[in-house]
């Protein structure tokens, strides 16, 4: 094999070094990288989708696609920022597919109605978090997942979502406003 340059992978090797090595074909670096970040991927996927099963599927899809995705890793951002972006994009794709499917599903007969009912029941069974999250518009939900869920600064979240910091700040104030309105509504 040409250009073999073994490097020792330690538990404290920075993510960026691992990612660059993995993108270059280093198997152990890749293994360490996914192992290290699976929980993070799953966590954000859960916060974005609000459903365990969905988060699990999404995390698996992301892991499966990561080797190819890493080809585009240029080391321009922090690895976690890059990874968060991958997760957010994957969640968006999933939602879009679901939207198309839901539309196609209208008028599919009993089987589909039963399935839709089941989904509705699941939603109802969820706790306050799901209630609150599901009443927020999608773009606010994404912002909340990153800023509150992942404890990112507004600047970091802006980089992940490809938006300006001001937009994030506005969105967070919007979230606050809506949560207050929801609380007032629930109190009545």
């Amino acid at each position, binding site marked *: *094999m*040409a*250009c*073999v*340059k*073994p*490097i020792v*992978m330690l538990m404290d090797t920075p993510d960026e070094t691992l990612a*660059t090595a993995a*993108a*270059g*074909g*280093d*198997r*152990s*670096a*890749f*293994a360490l990288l*996914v*192992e290290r970040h*699976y*929980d993070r991927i*799953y*966590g954000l996927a*859960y*916060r974005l989708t609000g459903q*365990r099963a969905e988060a*699990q599927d999404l*995390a*698996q899809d992301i*892991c*499966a696609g*990561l*080797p*190819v*995705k890493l*080809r*585009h890793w240029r080391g321009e951002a922090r690895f976690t920022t890059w990874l968060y*972006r991958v997760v*957010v*994009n*994957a969640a*968006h*794709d999933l939602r*879009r*597919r679901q939207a198309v499917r839901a539309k196609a599903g209208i008028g599919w007969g009993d089987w589909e109605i039963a399935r839709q009912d089941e989904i509705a029941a699941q939603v109802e069974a969820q*706790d306050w*978090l799901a209630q*609150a*999250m599901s009443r927020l518009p999608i773009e606010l939900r994404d912002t*909340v997942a990153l800023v*509150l*869920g992942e404890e990112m600064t507004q600047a970091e979240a802006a980089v992940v979502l*490809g938006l300006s910091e001001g937009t994030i700040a506005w969105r*967070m104030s919007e*979230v*606050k406003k809506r*949560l*207050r309105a929801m*609380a007032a509504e629930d109190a009545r």
Partner: protein
Amino acid sequence: MSDELDALKAALRTAPVPDPAAKAAALRLAMDNFDRLQASTDALRPKEDHPARVGFLQRTKAMLMAVKTKPVLAATTSVAALLVGFVVILPLVGHGPLPQAQKPVVSEAPEALIATPEAAKPLAPAADKAVTLQDTAPALKAAPAARATLGEEAPAGIVADMPAPMPEPMVQPVPNTEAFANADANPVKVTAEAPVSTFSIDVDTASYAVVRSSLNAGSLPDPAAVRIEEMVNYFPYAYPAPPQGQAFRPTITVMPTPWNPNTRLVNIAIQGALPDVATRPPLNLVFLVDTSGSMEDANKLPLLKQSLALLLAQLRPEDQVALVAYAGAAGEVLPPTSAAEHAKILAALDQLAAGGSTAGAQGLELAYQVAGSMAASGEVSRVLLATDGDFNVGIDDPQALKDFIAKKRDSGVYLSVLGFGRGNLDDATMQALAQNGNGTASYIDTLNEARKVLFDQLTGALYPIADNVKIQVEWNPAQVAEYRLIGYETRALQREDFNNDKVDAGDIGAGTQVTALYEVTAPGSPALRNDPLRYGSAPAVQGSAELGYLRLRSVAPGAADSSLQETPIVPGMPVTNDTRFAAAIAGFGQLLTGGKYLGDWGWDQAIDLALASRGSDAFGYRIEAVNLMRMAKALAAQ
């Protein structure tokens, strides 16, 4: 922070612990895919003991060897599909203007197949070539046992066993994942055996622009990227206009073949009518813009924005424009808007930024949905897909995508494809999409080309005047013993498809020209390539002076059934600069693809002929072609 936010934060922070089994499965899948990706990459990465450019066959062999040793490959369901990917992409290895051509070349980038097995799955024309190799797929499946014996080729195995390969990041070449649609050159046919030749017209021009971008980047184009008919059809010709009320008019010119004194060229030129532009129906355009990460380069998204801005100037207030982006975060960027609102449309265009992966299929669905909502009776709706062809996410099943587009085609929405940038241009998919979507595929490499496609020739590009145009020529064995269709390899039709309106074919836009060239050999000519048969082969009926008979079938836009137009092929039309120039370009294309039938005729002759026949050339397209020929000549001499 307020109480509400704190409560939400607390709830969000307590995310459930991942299921260990699911985690293990996901990690395993990640490693499998990593190995698979490496397997295909390792085999193609040049070794130090090779020169950077190894022979085509050697590389093929090395790659197939490596493939055989990969159990992972065999374990997937897509062995056949991956092989198809090889077939389509292989001819490219080591050619083409690789994106790093301008940089000091440290190593070649023959990583063609790593990223796009999906994209290269058999969409239309590519499928023809794929068939032969699919047969070998079962053999590969049986091969995993061979793995242990080939230590050097084996993938980086278990973590502890092997020092991890670590190519220097700076050396890592940008993967070139281009794929082109092509087929072998049409052979010489014997009229007595196969008197009928059938094909669909091809109004695309993408191939010429790809050839130009390769030559301008200093390398000869991959022969697979050369489709001669698209090169010929790139140029405007002044063919006689059709009479009032007719959609198009064929003009047949018989002339001596520039490269062979003993054969003749038959130029079949079709001129589409140019309806009164002032009374054209309103247009509904949906720009479907690829904003995936790969579109970042200056010659992709920025050029695309400029190009679409050019187009806007040509539209009228009653025309409507919508903008759909597809990539990670996609959706309708601009709802249907009157073309008069320039500022609004330009602002929406300006907002587009590259990022995320490509999900072409969902983008297409959304674009068609938007186009459907805009359509009113009598209006023309078209989706303009602008992409670098990186369809590697979202198409789970290329056949399904093709079917989807074909179905939408029947709903009256047209699809045109604008290709941008090089590096992972998936010409094969673009061709398949445009062909199935009743549209054209153009490749935009410069703002000038954008002007040609979207400004000067906008009417032709957006207004179809005849759909499903098929050409059938029956040759008269008394006059033509052998014939050869130059180009149109990817457009061949079965003889019986000609009368079958269910079989789709190309469409002619308003005011456009389509040219097809045959090289024909008379009986008894010294240029005959086939000896007469000793047995059989009935003597040709003497008498008719016709070389053959041309049948054209087309469907008026919106109509259900096709109509037929017939003309005998007889010599007599004067040879013009246009027909001579078309012949020069056909020669150019053949020189780029090997020039099997050209004899001694070479670059100098092609240049002379093109120069002599360039005519007024108001836009300079023809002189540009001459300069490209000069460049190709210089590159070929290296």
